[in-house]
C-alpha cells in the first residue's frame, strides 16, 4: 500500500514534469524511478561510510525561480565567454552559444530546453549509455527528482576551439534540492573542451545530486574539467560517468573543493578498441567534512589505456578517502591500467586514506599503482622558511607544488587560475585553526 507521502510525490513529480512540458518518456521514467528508488541499494564504495547521509531526503519538487542578483556574491567570471550557460537553482541566468557553432549543429543549452527542442536526441543518450537510471538508489532518485542541468552535443567531425563553460549554482537561500544532470555527447571524430563549476549560494542545509554523463563516439576527443565548491551545509553525491567508443579520448581534470560532506563516484568505461582516458583529481578537505572519492576506470576494449592520478590535502579534523579502481575485464588484451593516489595530512586530527584497487581478469596487460599518505616534507619547509617565508605560506607553497601536477593538466588558463585561487582560499581557511 502506498503511503500518503509517496502519493504526494507522484503527483508533484508529474506536475513538475508537466510544468516543464517534458516528453512522455521522461515523465514516465521519472515516475518509474520514483517508485523504484527506495528499494534499490546505495552504491558501495570501499571505506567510504556515507550511508546515513540525507542524500534522499527530498523536498516536494515545485517550479520556483531564483533571484539572479544573489550570484553577485560569487564573483563568477563569464562575461567574456562566448559559449556559456549559467543556471541558479532552477533558473537559467545566461545561455550563450557562438552562432557559428550553432550553425554547425552544436547544441549547448539547459536540460529542460533540450528535452523540449531535441527530445529524440536527448532520449537516445540520456542515461542509456554512460549510466543507467536504476544503477543504484542515488541514480534512480536523481532521475525522479531531476530539476536542472545541461545538454552539450557536438556533431560528427566538428572541432570546437573555444571552451564551453557551464556554471551551475545551487540556491540554498531556502530549502530546495539541487538535482542536476549534465549530458555531454561528442559524436564521431569531434573535439571539444568543456569546463563546469558548481557552487552554492545561501546557508540552508540542502542535498545536491549531480550526474554527469560524457559519451564519446569513435575518434572523439573530449577535455573535461570541473571545479566543485558546494557549501559546508550541502551534502552531495557527485557522479561523473564516461563511455568511450573506438579510439576516443577523454581527459578529466577535477578539483574537489567542496566544504561539506561529499561522496564522489567517477567511472569511465573504455568500451571501444584503443579508447584512452586520463583522470586527474585534486581535493582539499577542511573543517570536519568528509570527502570520499571513488575513481574507477574499466578497460573493456582491447588496447585501451586508463590512467588515474589523485592528489589530496587534508586539514583540520576533516577526512579524505581516495579509492582508485582499475578494472581490466577478460578479453581487453593489450590494455594498460595505471594509478597513483597521494594524500598529504597537515593536521594530527585529520584522517586520510589512499586505496589502490586493481582488478585484472586478463593476462596480456600492463598495470601498476602507487599510493601514499604522508605529511609535509620538513626539509622543504625548512628551506622555504630559511628564505623568510612564514610557516603558513611555506606550507601553502609546498601543497600547491604537491597539487601542481594535476593543476597543470587543466587546459583553460582561466579555469586553472580559478582553481589555484580556490585552493588558496580553502587552504587559508583551513589553516586558520591550525
Amino acid at each position, binding site marked *: 500500500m502506498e503511503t500518503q507521502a509517496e502519493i504526494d510525490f507522484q503527483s508533484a513529480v508529474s506536475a513538475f514534469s508537466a510544468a516543464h512540458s517534458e516528453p512522455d518518456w521522461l515523465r514516465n521514467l521519472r515516475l518509474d524511478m520514483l517508485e523504484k528508488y527506495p528499494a534499490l541499494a546505495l552504491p558501495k564504495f570501499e571505506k567510504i561510510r556515507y550511508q546515513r547521509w540525507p542524500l534522499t531526503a527530498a523536498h516536494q519538487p515545485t517550479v520556483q525561480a531564483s533571484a539572479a542578483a544573489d550570484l553577485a556574491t560569487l564573483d563568477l567570471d563569464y562575461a567574456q565567454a562566448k559559449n556559456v550557460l549559467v543556471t541558479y537553482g532552477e533558473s537559467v541566468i545566461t545561455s550563450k552559444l557562438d552562432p557559428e557553432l550553432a550553425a554547425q549543429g552544436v547544441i549547448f543549452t539547459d536540460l529542460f530546453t533540450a528535452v523540449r527542442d531535441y527530445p529524440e536526441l536527448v532520449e537516445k543518450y540520456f542515461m542509456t549509455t554512460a549510466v543507467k537510471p536504476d544503477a543504484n538508489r542515488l541514480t534512480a532518485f536523481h532521475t525522479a527528482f531531476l530539476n536542472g542541468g545541461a545538454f552539450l552535443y557536438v556533431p560528427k567531425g566538428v572541432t570546437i576551439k573555444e571552451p564551453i563553460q557551464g556554471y551551475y549554482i545551487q540556491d540554498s537561500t531556502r530549502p530546495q534540492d539541487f538535482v542536476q544532470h549534465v549530458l555531454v555527447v561528442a559524436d564521431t571524430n569531434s573535439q571539444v573542451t568543456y569546463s563546469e563549476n558548481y557552487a552554492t549560494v545561501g546557508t540552508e542545509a540542502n542535498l545536491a545530486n549531480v550526474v554527469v554523463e560524457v559519451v564519446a563516439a569513435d575518434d572523439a576527443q573530449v577535455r573535461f574539467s570541473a571545479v566543485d565548491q558546494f557549501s559546508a551545509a550541502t551534502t552531495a553525491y557527485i557522479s561523473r560517468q564516461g563511455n568511450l567508443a573506438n579510439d576516443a579520448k577523454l581527459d578529466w581534470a577535477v578539483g574537489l573543493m567542496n566544504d561539506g560532506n561529499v561522496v564522489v563516484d567517477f567511472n569511465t568505461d573504455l568500451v571501444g578498441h584503443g579508447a584512452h582516458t586520463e583522470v586527474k583529481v585534486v581535493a582539499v578537505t577542511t573543517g570536519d567534512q568528509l570527502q570520499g572519492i571513488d575513481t574507477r576506470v574499466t578497460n573493456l576494449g582491447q588496447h585501451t589505456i586508463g590512467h588515474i592520478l589523485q592528489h589530496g590535502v587534508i586539514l583540520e579534523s576533516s577526512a579524505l578517502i581516495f579509492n582508485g579502481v582499475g578494472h581490466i575485464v577478460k578479453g581487453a588484451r593489450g590494455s594498460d591500467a595505471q594509478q597513483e593516489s597521494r594524500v598529504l595530512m597537515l593536521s594530527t586530527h585529520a584522517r586520510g586514506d589512499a586505496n589502490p584497487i586493481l582488478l585484472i581478469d586478463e593476462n596480456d596487460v600492463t598495470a601498476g599503482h602507487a599510493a601514499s599518505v604522508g605529511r609535509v*616534507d*620538513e*626539509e*622543504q619547509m*625548512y*628551506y*622555504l*622558511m*630559511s*628564505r*623568510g*617565508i*612564514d*610557516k603558513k*605560506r*611555506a606550507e601553502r*607553497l*609546498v601543497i*600547491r*607544488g*604537491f*597539487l*601542481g*601536477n594535476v*593543476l597543470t593538466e587543466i587546459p583553460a588558463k582561466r579555469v586553472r587560475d580559478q582553481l589555484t585561487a580556490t585552493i588558496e582560499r580553502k587552504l587559508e581557511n583551513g589553516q586558520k585553526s591550525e
Partner: protein
Amino acid sequence: MSKLEVKNLHVAVVDEDKSLQKEILKGVDLTMNTGEIHAIMGPNGTGKSTLSQAIMGNPAYKVTEGDVLLDGKSLLEMPVDERARAGLFLAMQYPAEIAGVTNIEFMRAAINARRADDDQIPVLEFMKFLDKNLATLDMSDDMVERYLNEGFSGGEKKRNEILQLMMIQPKFAILDEIDSGLDIDALKVVSKGVNAMRGPEFGSLIITHYQRLLNYIVPDTVHVMMDGRIVESGGPELAEKLEAEGYAGVRDDLGLDVKLTDEI
C-alpha cells in the same frame, strides 16, 4: 653596520632512534660585522655545517648552551623564517627540491615576505633586478621558470643559491661549502656573485674545506675549526698555511689532542 655574535655556543643533535643526544659544538665564539668576510675551515666532521644550521635555526639542531645574537638581540627563540627576515641567509649544501613551485615565484615570495602587504615589489622592478643578477651569474632565463631546484645539477643548485642571495640581499650570508662539486668555471661565477655583494652592509661567513675558493673570495679573517671549537684565527695567510701543512699539521702545532675523521 650590523654585528653577528656567536657566544660559547654548544649544539647537540638528537638521534631519534636511540634517543641519544650527541654534542657537536663545544663552545664556539665568533664575532663578525657587516663589511667583513670570514672563512671557517676545518676537517670533515668537525661541526662547520652544524654551526651554520644552528645560527640559521634548523630545528634538528639543539642549542644546549651559549647564544647567537644579531645586533645584540638573541636569535635563539626565533624560528628560522624570523631569523631570515632579521637579515640572515644560509646558502645550503643540499638545497631542497620542490616540484610545482617555480623558482621565480619562490624568489618573489621571499622578497615580498620582507615587505608590507601593501608594498609588494612591483613586477617590473623585480624582473629588472632578476635579469641583472642572472647576467652576473651567467644563468639563463629558463632557470627561473623551472621548478625550484627540481632536476638541477649540483652546479645549478649552487648558482641558484647565490642567485637567491643576490635577490634577497641579507645582512649576513653563511655559505656552507658552496664550492663543493663545482668546477673551476662555476667556482669563478659563484665567487663573482658573492664579490658583487661585498660592501659595508653585507657580511659573509664562508665554510669550506679548501683554500681554493678563498683565492677568489678573499676573506678578511680565517678561522680554523676542530672538534667543535674554533682553535685558531688569523688573516688570509692562515688558509695558505693550512693548504701547505694540512689540518693535522695545524693541530700538532697547537698541541691539540683531536682525532681527525679522515686520519689514517
